[in-house]
């Protein structure tokens, strides 16, 4: 019974959202506002029960671990951003977060996204793939070298680099289209299967 009501609500809200494809209308606005309101309420409760309570309130107040006073104070300082006169205090916990994450990220990001990638690019030019990789990376880098005017041979190499970039953008866009169609298939399957029972 409750499942059926849930499916009907979900189906009608899906149709309300789809109605935007025709033009903006009150049904779409209603569904949009409802989604934002429900999400905000849901996440507020969720964060309280799954983040604040187990990671701060329980260890501090029930288990009596005084070290947790530090995150409590930092959290309160962060909330002071809402008081215009003393909003500057929120910069301190923010600085703590930025500093911590910069430290966390710096070495590992450099290792994962730069060093490993460069190492994998410097390979012997013995296969077709490695030649394409070498030409693509080199000409792409030439395109992003702006201290010399893109003219003559240098301009030609840079133009070749643009072709590689365009192919990469095309592949990325193709995947994006595929993803959006997948989402549409998901919704259509829900409407035809769970709601209307037309398909198995």
């Amino acid at each position, binding site marked *: 019974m409750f499942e059926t009501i849930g499916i009907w609500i979900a189906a009608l809200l899906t149709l309300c959202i789809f109605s935007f*494809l*025709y033009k903006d209308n009150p049904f779409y606005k209603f569904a949009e506002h409802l989604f934002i309101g429900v999400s905000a309420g849901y*996440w507020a409760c*969720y*964060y309280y029960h*799954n*983040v604040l309570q187990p*990671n701060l309130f329980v260890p501090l107040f029930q288990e009596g671990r005084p070290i947790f006073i530090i995150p409590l104070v930092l959290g309160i300082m962060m909330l002071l951003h809402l008081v215009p006169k003393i909003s500057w205090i929120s910069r301190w916990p923010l600085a703590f977060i930025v500093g911590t*994450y910069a430290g*966390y*990220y710096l070495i*590992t*990001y450099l*290792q*994962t*996204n730069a060093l*490993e*990638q460069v*190492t*994998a690019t410097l390979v012997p030019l013995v296969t077709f793939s490695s030649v394409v*990789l070498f030409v693509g990376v080199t000409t792409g880098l030439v395109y992003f070298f702006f201290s010399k005017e893109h003219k003559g041979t240098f301009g030609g190499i840079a133009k070749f680099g643009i072709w590689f970039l365009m192919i*990469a953008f095309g*592949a*990325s866009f193709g*995947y*994006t*289209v*595929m*993803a*959006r*169609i*997948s*989402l*549409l*298939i*998901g*919704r*259509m*399957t829900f409407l*035809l299967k769970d709601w209307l029972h*037309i*398909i*198995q």
Partner: protein
Amino acid sequence: MNLEKLMRIDRRLIFLLIALAVIFPLLFPIGLPTHLSKPVQDTFNAVDSIPPDGPPLMLSIDYDPAAMPELYPMTLAILRHCFSRNIRVLVLSLHRAGPGIGEMATTRIAKEYGKKEGEDYVYLGFKPGFGAVILRMGEDIHGAFLTDYYNRPIGEIPMMREIHNYDDIPLVICLSAAAIPELWMMYAGSRYHQTIAAGVTAVSAADYYPFLQTDQLVGLIGGLKGASEYEKLVNELEERLGVDKKRKESLSKEEYEKLQVSHSKASAGMDSQSIAHLVIIAFIVIGNVAYFAQRRRKR
């Protein structure tokens, strides 16, 4: 044909044609073939190489309901693969919206394969902190997750007694619609040399190909297409192992057919995907032909 008119075609007509291209193959399946790609086969092989009843696969459910059409069939297929081969699974979520989805998928497939919670699989649930949690698990999983999703202390769970950190995890698969696989590579991969595979939405799949080339990812499942490939591999495996035959014998015809449909959830959407792509390609070609013809006429 009036090219001016073609260039100013009502966008709602395009929406309608795309909708029809998606709906018709769902109503009347064509059964277009799905070809296997190497990244998906590599993921399958990595899972398949885990010994039965040995160290578990770690499955990180890091997506929200918006990504379910693409990533949920992947989740089900991976869990089916593990349970049909008696591979133990350790499921967790680093995304705040993931725990409900993870629990739904894990309990459903575990029930289908008769697997016991705490012995064949453990559901750790959600822990906020992304990178910090991944790093902590490298030292001690028991320290990162004090209890499982059902509030049972980790130390009391039989399967968890032998699992302490990434040394006891042969493979991590991160299913995500965001940049969380990158965090797994950064913290678990670079620092602890953990073997990682990823299942991502098609939007982000292109971003992860460079990590395949560097072997930072052992495999990649991209979008609904990747999910359908994995599903196909698992269906073939179950046939080889005789799991499908046993199921056919133990279930009624109606139950078996219903299960077969749910085991081809991703593949069922591939007809719509292909037809919709053809319609989009047709529109791109028509648009370009009209544009160039119009430009030529103006000259």
